[in-house]
């Protein structure tokens, strides 16, 4: 029976892959891709794993494909940077069972360290790419992607963006329509699967032949279609930009490229010949535009459509006016007065196990980069990493100096020390990020005799993306109990002799651990351990402030806890937000002993 449902693009991809007979799925969490594997993990008749990182996820998928199963690897745009090595390799070997690589891009870098257009990866690897513009297409395309993969012996990239992955749109789903695919067995094939240089060279022409065949296929793909409207204006578009185009230019003729690499030359030429003016509307880079221009076709695009950030109907409408395609609306654009509203920026949650550490870091030494603060010794440079704790860079904590990509904190600290930085060096990394790509950096540090303090902020989960399991949690993506990798044992096995494990809510212990670590001129590791506060219930025996003892010094506000608020002249604690027995950090910090638990309870740091 078919039912209409409101599904996100990611839910639709998961359902489509399942219906296409997927057997193995692997991913590392990353916005906006996370929900694909989360949804797949709920199907108990397939195998779905959170991999240690995207490179491993890709290798798992490639292995499953070689063994004959339909398989996918999903990741955010920067995840494909991590996975680029196996991705490029499988583009050469080709596949056995259908292999789909999902790249979920983040135009506007709404939850990422950068903005990049991963369509270039399809071109780089010379593999086909599909780009959905809503959930129905996401569902249809992922099913088609498996067929294309097997028909052309190639991995297929399905590229979404945040707006496609996260928007919910109506689609028809059928129950019980999973296709049962037979698992083809692995067959020894020296020339196909073993990329010795001679074999790699031998396969190169096959890749070129494949892309030519795929270009022919693109001409007739049902995902590439022309809808003729007015011949005055023709627009070539893809992905979410298609929906915006239909909204802003309802009269125009449109060529929608759903199979967007390799591009259908003849279809584009035919479309161009039927319209007087040709415009390309695409998000981020001029990917289609450069190709169409290379065909010698006159076209307008990025001179007017922004190359940076997410497109919206408003942005396209503005560009349309600038191009003279839309008339200036008469008197409609009234100017309105708008006061500056206080910003509502993300914060570490009340009870966050990272708060105490950042508070301590901000007070133990003088940060080299913060102007206006009293000079104190030692001066510190704190290299940060990717996760919730990156928020420690924001006011009032201001306790991070760098953040680039997953795992970078450790390598950055090594480099700074080797460059002769006179400050004390501290690297901060989360538990999941350490397992993702911190271990190799730590081995490098030991091997190359680097000296700095590495702090692993172990909150027992992958926090920022919404609490996914990882190798240290003892649970698999599908909820089974499993071996929990020990951070202590890994650190020791890397060759670290100075290791301290501290309760993340014990302010005194944190301070002492940091002090001793900074004083000793060796490579040392501190594991600051405390489970993520989102997992605990708030409002349990909240802390209160004794107004007779409080001198309004404001020290507790420096924790950056949103439960501690300044109300007119008084500092108050919002009992509905306070993590109470699960935290008690402010109580330890208050110099006047003015903060106390509402009822007798745990004080002086939560017991882990």
């Amino acid at each position, binding site marked *: 029976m078919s039912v*209409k*449902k*409101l599904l996100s693009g990611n839910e639709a991809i998961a359902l489509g892959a399942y219906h296409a007979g997927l057997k193995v799925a692997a991913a590392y969490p990353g916005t906006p891709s996370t929900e694909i594997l989360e949804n797949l993990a709920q199907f108990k008749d397939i195998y779905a794993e959170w991999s240690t990182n995207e490179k491993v996820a890709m290798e798992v998928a490639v292995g499953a494909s070689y063994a004959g199963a339909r398989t996918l690897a999903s990741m955010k745009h920067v995840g494909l940077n991590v996975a680029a090595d196996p991705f490029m390799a499988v583009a050469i070997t080709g596949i056995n069972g259908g292999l789909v690589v999902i790249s979920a891009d983040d135009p506007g870098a*709404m*939850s990422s360290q950068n903005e990049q257009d991963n369509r270039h990866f399809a071109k780089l690897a010379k593999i086909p790419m599909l780009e959905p513009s*809503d959930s129905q297409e996401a569902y249809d395309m992922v099913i088609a992607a498996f067929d294309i993969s097997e028909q052309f012996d190639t991995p297929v990239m399905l590229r979404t963006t945040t*707006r496609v992955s*996260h*928007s*919910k*749109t*109506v689609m028809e789903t059928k129950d019980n329509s999973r296709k049962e695919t037979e698992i083809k067995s692995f067959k020894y094939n020296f020339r196909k699967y073993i990329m010795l240089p001679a074999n790699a060279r031998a396969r190169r022409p096959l890749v070129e032949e494949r892309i030519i065949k795929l270009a022919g296929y693109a001409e007739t793909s049902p995902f590439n279609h022309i809808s003729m409207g007015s011949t005055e204006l023709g627009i070539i578009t893809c992905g979410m930009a298609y*929906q*915006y185009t*239909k*909204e802003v230019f309802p009269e125009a003729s449109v060529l929608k490229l759903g199979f967007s690499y390799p591009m259908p030359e003849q279809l584009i030429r035919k479309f161009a010949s039927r319209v007087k003016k040709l415009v390309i509307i695409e998000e981020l880079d001029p990917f289609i535009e450069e190709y169409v221009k290379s065909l010698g076709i006159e076209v307008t695009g990025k001179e007017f459509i922004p190359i940076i950030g997410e497109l*919206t*109907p*408003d942005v396209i*409408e503005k560009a349309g006016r600038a191009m003279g395609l839309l008339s200036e609306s008469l008197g*409609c654009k*009234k100017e*309105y*007065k*708008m*006061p500056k*509203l*206080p*910003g*509502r*920026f*993300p*914060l*570490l*949650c009340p009870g966050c196990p990272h708060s105490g550490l950042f508070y301590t870091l901000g007070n133990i030494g003088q940060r080299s980069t913060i102007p206006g603060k009293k000079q104190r010794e030692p001066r510190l440079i704190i290299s940060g990493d990717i996760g*919730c704790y990156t*928020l420690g860079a924001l006011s*009032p904590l201001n306790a991070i100096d760098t953040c680039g990509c997953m795992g970078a904190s450790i390598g950055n600290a090594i480099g700074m020390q080797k460059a002769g930085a006179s400050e004390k060096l501290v690297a901060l990394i989360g538990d999941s990020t350490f397992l993702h790509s911190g271990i190799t950096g730590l081995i490098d540090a030991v091997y190359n005799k680097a000296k700095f303090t590495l702090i692993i902020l172990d909150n027992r989960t992958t926090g*920022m993306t*919404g609490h996914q399991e990882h190798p240290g949690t003892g649970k698999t993506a599908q909820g089974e109990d499993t071996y929990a990798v020990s951070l202590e044992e890994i650190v020791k096995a890397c060759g670290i002799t100075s290791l301290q494990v501290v309760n993340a809510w014990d302010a005194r212990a944190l301070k002492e651990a940091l002090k001793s670590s900074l004083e000793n001129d060796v490579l040392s590791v501190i594991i600051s351990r405390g489970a993520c506060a*989102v997992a605990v219930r708030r409002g349990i025996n909240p802390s209160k402030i004794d107004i007779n003892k409080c001198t309004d010094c404001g020290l507790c*506000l420096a924790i*950056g806890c*949103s439960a*501690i*608020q*300044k*109300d007119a002249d008084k500092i108050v604690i919002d009992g*509905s937000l306070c993590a109470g027995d699960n935290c008690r950090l402010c109580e330890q910090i208050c110099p006047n002993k003015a903060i106390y638990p509402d009822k007798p309870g745990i004080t002086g740091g939560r017991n882990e």
Partner: protein
Amino acid sequence: MNSYNIIIAGVGGQGVILAGNIIGDAAIALGYDVKKTDTIGMAQRGGSVISHLRVAPKIYSPVIGEGQADIVISFEKMEAARCFSFLKPGGTVILNNREMPPLSVSCGMEQYPSDEEIMIVLEQKTDSIYFVEGSKKSEAIGNIKVLNIFMLGCLSQFMDIEDKVWRESIIRSLPAKIVGINITAFEAGIESVKL
């Protein structure tokens, strides 16, 4: 069939996303096309949440353009003003009379806007502004978490969707043991905007 562009605004944790899903579910049951998209950023950690919900016979863009929202429904007072650019001239604003001061305000670095300042902004486009005591009523009902369903009750009075369809959608979307308290909240929401 009518068409509605609705902006639902609030702060991470207030149930904005679920509220939008329930409206969508109700509209699909009536055969509407629905698209819904959220700008959440890092909402789980106290940021602003803005949910775009479009209900019409046929929809392309999930994103609502400037000046295109028929209704702005805000779970937090100041967030209504933040969504002003989306509001259609003559549109409707429903706002929960509850201040949730961001850190910059609670640390004394910025000022929370006064009711008057918020009204001056909104009144540039519309007179149809409803202040409701959603948080207070929800607390009185027994759980602040029913606020989102209370706000849906308010919204239901501005959409041509029958009461029965709303209730069925709420029942479909929530665990059975909390349906009762949420239906109470829904009814309280309806009452709070009745003239």
